[in-house]
C-alpha cells in the first residue's frame, strides 16, 4: 500500500473543513493522499489538490479530484480562500526511516515539524488576504511549538477541533493572517 488511507486524523480534518468551507470558495488541499477530503469539499467548492506521491495523485484523480503532482504548493501560483493540509507530523529519527511513499506521508523529521515549517514559510503566497488555513497536528508534534511557528510569521492560530486517541491528542488548527498587528502608539 503506497497511499495513506483515511484514518481518525482524516475524519477530524474533514469534519472541520466541511463546517468551515463556504459555497463557491476556492480551496487548495496540499498533500491530498487518498483524495477523500478534496472530493468531499468539491461538492460545494472549487477544489484543487496536490501531492508529491505519484500513487496518491492517481488515487485522488480516480475520485474525480483536479490534482497536480508537486511538492506542497511549489507549482501553484493562485490565491485561495481556504488551504487544507494534513501534513507529515510524526517525529521521526533517521534510523527509523524506511524510505517509501507511505512513510513520506508521516515523517515530520526529528521534531515532527520539518514539513509544517516549510509550509508555514510559504503558505502566504497562495492565500487570499482573508484566507484561512486548516491543518492537523498531534500532541506529539508539539501544539505550542507549532503555534509559535505561525505566530512568528505573522499569523494567528487557534485550535478548532480536537480528539483524544490512545497516547496522543489530534488537533485541527485554523490559521489566518494577523490583520491587526500590535503597534506602538504613534508608530
Amino acid at each position, binding site marked *: 500500500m503506497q497511499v495513506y488511507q483515511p484514518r481518525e486524523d482524516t475524519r477530524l480534518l474533514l469534519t472541520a473543513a466541511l463546517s468551515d468551507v463556504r459555497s463557491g470558495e476556492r480551496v487548495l488541499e496540499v498533500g491530498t493522499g487518498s483524495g477523500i477530503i478534496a472530493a468531499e469539499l468539491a461538492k460545494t467548492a472549487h477544489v*484543487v489538490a496536490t501531492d*508529491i506521491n505519484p500513487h496518491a*495523485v*492517481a488515487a485522488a*484523480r480516480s475520485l474525480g479530484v*483536479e*490534482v*497536480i*503532482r*508537486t*511538492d506542497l504548493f*511549489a*507549482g*501553484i*501560483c*493562485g490565491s485561495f480562500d481556504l488551504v487544507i493540509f494534513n501534513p507529515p507530523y510524526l517525529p521521526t529519527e533517521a534510523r527509523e526511516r524506511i524510505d517509501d511513499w507511505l512513510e513520506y506521508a508521516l515523517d515530520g523529521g526529528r521534531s515532527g515539524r520539518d514539513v509544517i515549517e516549510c509550509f508555514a514559510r510559504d503558505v502566504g503566497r497562495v492565500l487570499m488576504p482573508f484566507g484561512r488555513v486548516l491543518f492537523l497536528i498531534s500532541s506529539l508534534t508539539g501544539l505550542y511549538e507549532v503555534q509559535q511557528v505561525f505566530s512568528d510569521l505573522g499569523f494567528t492560530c487557534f485550535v478548532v477541533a480536537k480528539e483524544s486517541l490512545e497516547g496522543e491528542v489530534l488537533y485541527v488548527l485554523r490559521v489566518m493572517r494577523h490583520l491587526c498587528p500590535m503597534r506602538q502608539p504613534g508608530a
Partner: protein
Amino acid sequence: MRRNLMEILCCPVCKGDLELRVIEETEAEIMEGGLLCGHCGVEYGIHDGIPDLLPKT
C-alpha cells in the same frame, strides 16, 4: 487537467508562467502534454491528465 487550471500553475522553481503544449485532449481536459517554463528552459509533463510539477534536478 482542465485548461483553466493553467491560471494557477507556475514553474515550481522560478514561479514563472508556463506555456501549454497539448498532445492529447478530450472534450473535458488535457490528457497528455507538456508545460514549458521558458525562463528555466524546462518542460514538465502532463500524463494521464495529471500535471507533474516536480523540479527536474
